[in-house]
């Protein structure tokens, strides 16, 4: 067990493949985090996380305070949603989603009253005296999800101690996506609070050892975090080589430990839980100040943005408001993206609200996107060299294209992390990730269909068994009655005979 449980990290391990995109971070890296002015309206979607959508707890017309619960989490994997500011609920309905489809989703619309008045907060006196389970409960109640973009409910990850033997908390400060600088700024400007949050998380997880990994293109963040962590010998800040996708948690853990996370498993399988620094800061705010997650820091950048910035934005603020604060577009952007350019999603327009998982809004020019017509594969194997997961993207794409889903699955479709390294290097501009997303979708559909079929089959079989049991019971009952009747008859006859004899 445990490279990390006993040893400091003295050596890093090489990951397979990867690419070196231009990081383009200088556009926004020197912009200190600013608060976005209060927008006129907030559109707060009820699903800003992986799992079940939250259920509204307010009605149209209600007046709410900042931090008040707007919608309750539903089920094991879910997260509640809170009011980002004080104001009036002017709508509980539908609004275009923060998603490429632009489909309408359940959304609560809030009209700020401008007072930004907090609800009564009741933080614990000292989080380190709480039961670790209580910390997870409070993190869940604060609506905190993975702010690196994955948006997995953080409390579920903090509870992993119940099922796994953990030894290390790794903080993923790689921020390997080009353009994004929000974690960089956050670690520079809020290093002490972030470290505090990290320590609370480690306490909740029951681990002693903490490793903070930061890519070497962020020396200021490394220095700030080191400085803030000097008092804690169990915290180690490690400089990571610049190589995309260093921020993929499984690859980050491999870089630090040399160990691969088993396929279909979690890093917890090798005793490690990974969290993002912004999540740690949110945990700190929840446990020290009792504040739920109502805002987040994001990078607004790209060649088409007039003044790239790092902004703290209330959740539910329209993308348009964020862009307006950055003085709009230089040129009409070719693509508007939520997240980084390697794994981010296209936004349909600027009306959509910002959400918990949105770490960046990028407006990219034609030159930056370098879109090009797809041409046939020349089997150059650049994608094979770039794939950090050891897959054969060219063969997977060929099979996906031919509709040969079984072959794609066998080639490791579900081991693909959709990092985009293959598409990035492909000289034929084949949209490999798009093929894989399509295949993953088809596979999910097929599994759903199969599940439905199995369920139907099970129900039919159950019904048949039930009917048969009923039939059998009926028969038995009839037979028993017959027997009873016969016995009665016999008894009566015997009685008669007796009487006659008498």
């Amino acid at each position, binding site marked *: 067990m445990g490279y990390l449980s006993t040893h400091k990290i003295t050596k890093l391990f090489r990951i397979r493949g990867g690419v070196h995109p231009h990081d383009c971070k200088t556009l926004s890296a020197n912009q200190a985090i600013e608060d976005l002015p209060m927008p006129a309206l907030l559109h707060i979607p009820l699903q800003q996380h992986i799992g079940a959508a939250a259920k509204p707890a307010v009605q149209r017309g209600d007046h709410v305070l900042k931090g008040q619960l707007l919608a309750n989490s539903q089920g094991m994997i879910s997260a509640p949603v809170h009011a980002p500011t004080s104001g009036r609920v002017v709508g509980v309905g539908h609004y275009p989603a923060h998603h*490429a489809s632009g489909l309408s989703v359940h959304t609560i619309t809030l009209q700020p009253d401008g007072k930004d008045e907090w609800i009564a907060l009741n933080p614990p006196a000292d989080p380190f005296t709480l039961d670790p389970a209580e910390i997870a409960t409070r993190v869940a109640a604060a609506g905190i999800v993975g702010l690196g973009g994955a948006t997995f409910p953080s409390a579920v990850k903090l509870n992993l101690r119940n099922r796994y033997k953990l030894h290390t908390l790794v903080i993923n400060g790689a921020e390997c996506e080009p353009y994004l600088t929000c974690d960089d700024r956050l670690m520079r400007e809020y290093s002490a609070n972030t470290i505090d949050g990290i320590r609370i998380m480690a306490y909740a997880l029951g681990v002693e050892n903490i490793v903070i990994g930061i890519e070497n293109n962020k020396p200021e963040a490394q220095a700030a975090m080191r400085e803030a962590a000097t008092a804690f010998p169990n915290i180690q800040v490690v400089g990571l080589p610049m190589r995309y996708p260093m921020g993929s948690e499984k690859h980050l853990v491999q870089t630090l430990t040399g160990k691969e996370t*088993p396929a279909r498993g979690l890093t917890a399988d090798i005793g490690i839980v990974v969290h993002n620094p912004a999540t740690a800061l949110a945990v700190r705010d929840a446990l020290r100040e009792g504040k739920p997650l109502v805002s987040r820091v994001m990078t607004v950048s790209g060649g088409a943005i007039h003044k790239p910035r790092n902004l703290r934005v209330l959740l539910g603020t329209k993308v348009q408001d964020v862009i307006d604060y950055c003085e709009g577009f230089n040129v009409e952007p070719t693509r508007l993206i939520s997240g980084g350019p390697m794994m981010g999603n296209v936004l349909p327009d600027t009306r959509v609200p910002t959400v918990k998982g949105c770490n960046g809004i990028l407006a990219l020019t034609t030159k930056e996107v370098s879109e090009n017509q797809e041409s*046939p594969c*020349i*089997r150059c194997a650049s994608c094979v060299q770039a794939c950090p997961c050891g897959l*054969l993207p060219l063969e997977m794409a060929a099979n996906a294209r031919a509709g040969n889903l079984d072959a794609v699955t066998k080639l490791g479709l579900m081991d693909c992390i959709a990092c985009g390294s293959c598409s990035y290097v492909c*000289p034929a501009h084949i949209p490999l990730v798009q093929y894989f997303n399509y295949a993953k979708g088809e596979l999910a559909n097929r599994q759903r269909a199969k599940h439905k079929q199995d369920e139907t089959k099970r129900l039919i079989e159950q019904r048949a068994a039930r009917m048969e049991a009923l039939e059998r019971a009926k028969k038995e009952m009839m037979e028993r009655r017959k027997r009873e009747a016969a016995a009665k008859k016999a008894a009566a006859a015997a009685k008669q005979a007796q009487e006659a004899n008498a």
Partner: protein
Amino acid sequence: MSMISSPHTHSGKSVQLTMLWVMLALAPATVFGLYLFGWPAISLFLITVLSCLLAEAIALKIMGKPIGKYLFDGSAILTGWLLAMSLPPSAPWWIGVLGAFLAIIVGKQVFGGIGQNLFNPAMVARVALLISFPLEMTTWVTADGVSGATPLGHIRTETGQGHTLSSLADSLPSVSDMGLGMIGGSMGETSAVLLLLGGLFLLWKHIITWHIPVSMIGTLLLLAGIMHAISPEVYPGMEVHLLAGATLLGAFFIATDLVTSPVSPTGQLVFGAGCGLLVYVIRTWAGYPEGMAFAVLLMNALTPLIDHYFRPRIYGRDRKGEPLNYASEEGK
């Protein structure tokens, strides 16, 4: 707004650029060859390349594919270029034309065009020409215009007749002549130094990886070294195999052809070793002293099989594809 998938940025690599880098890498050896062999070589080179473009245009037209998109993607020019490099510089013009049509139509377009061909088109054409026109395809001139056999051909003929290598010493070029390219041979294969330079350039530009050249040359030299040590009078040494014939052209430019070589690093090592082995066997014991084209084509045929059996290990899985299991490891 269409549903565009990530990533939203690109390295800037393109098929055209890839082909361009390969041509640039070939340029020094080519220019040297053209200078060495003069006008006949220059005209043969131009005829071959232009015929390839013509054949490509005709094929695209017939297949109803957009000519503008495909004709100048560089692949047809490169095929013509490599074919010209592998022809005897004194070959008649129609060899170039016929070779070009064989390469583009039989070698490439019948398979479905760029990226679809199983065999290296230039080598398909070269072998077809060699078998059909053995005289034209084996008439070599040296730099000074005297006709004669290539060093490998000479050795093969003489040792075949029972002569020892030491008795040939006077009639063989020196190592420095072979290195620089002052010998007979195909137009582009003669200058080992310039080919090596081009190969290193391709490695530097990440167009090819080291696997095929290293395993191919390594295998060839290993065999040459062993056989030479066993019987130095019959089997020429490593320097002859490295510098004469198409070894370097083959190792850096022909065997590494992207379309027809395996995609995984292990597969490439196997492929290269196979090429090296076959080159040695064909040069030493088969009927053709210049065995590169045959060796590469035979290994091309095995590429799908190699690709099937030599896949990279998937992250988080063992070689068999099962998820890693640390628990069982610790239990042992």
